[in-house]
């Protein structure tokens, strides 16, 4: 019989990857590097800071929580169109935060709407730390 260990191992790794979709490590590294570059004293992302930021308005009518609610483990609703929005926390919705292009697309759109400007790397890292810290 032929040795099939590599195939089995690969399948196992794939399965493990699918079950626990994570924020792409290279994306987090690039946010971290950019945050360090912007502020010399940057001491890492903070879930607590991300939570406060998520709930507060930033000079507009909306906060993140306006559509995503105060509990990102639950579903939300689009403030203008009324469309239901699936939960944002990966613990409740494993698809979330697993694809760099999608994360960046939504940051671009939603930061413009909520902050009237692009989010900084530190803000992105903080809110990701907050969302991934939430457990069911």
């Amino acid at each position, binding site marked *: 019989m032929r040795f099939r260990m590599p195939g089995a191992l690969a399948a196992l790794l794939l399965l493990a990857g699918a079950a626990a979709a994570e924020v792409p490590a290279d994306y987090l590294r690039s946010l971290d590097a950019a945050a360090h570059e912007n502020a010399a004293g940057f001491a890492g992302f903070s879930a607590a800071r991300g939570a406060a930021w998520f709930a507060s308005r930033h000079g507009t009518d909306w906060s993140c929580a306006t559509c995503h609610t105060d509990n990102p483990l639950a579903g939300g609703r689009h403030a203008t169109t009324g469309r239901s929005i699936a939960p944002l926390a990966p613990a409740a919705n494993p698809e979330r935060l697993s694809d760099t292009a999608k994360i960046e697309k939504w940051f*671009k759109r939603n930061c*413009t709407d909520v902050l009237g400007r692009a989010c900084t790397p530190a803000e992105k890292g903080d809110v990701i730390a907050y969302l991934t810290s939430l457990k069911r």
Partner: protein
Amino acid sequence: MLDDRRRKWFDGIVWTAATVYIAMLVDTAQAADHRYPVDNATYQSECGSCHVAYPPALLGAGTWREIMRGLDRHFGTDASIGESAQAQIKAYLEAGAGRSRGEVPTLRISDAAWFRKEHDGITAATWKSSAVGSPANCGACHRQADRGDFDERSLRVPAKEVR
């Protein structure tokens, strides 16, 4: 007797007329049972995450073109998407655009004459109720709106309840 060139010309006119006529029949048939195809995965995922993936047939091609030109200022929000998705969705919407719908200068489906006529029985209180909230929220009453099905059989207007 017709010479060859004239006959070709005549054939061309007949074919064009037949195509336009069939297209109009299809439009009418769709309008009759209020079911319109929405069958593009990119369109559904990119546009359908913030609002119902409105059937392409509900607006004219020129209106869709205008909408797709200004996604970064999309009814007060930034709805920009990647270049290839943008091109693909634009082509899809233009190809499926309603031929007999006409264009809407405000770009809003809810401002189209046919929309107003179809919804003239809906009171302001219903539009503003928490269950509906906005004319953009088709799914509040048209339970199968996500599938392009606006037939009266799947229609349920929620009880009035002012927010």
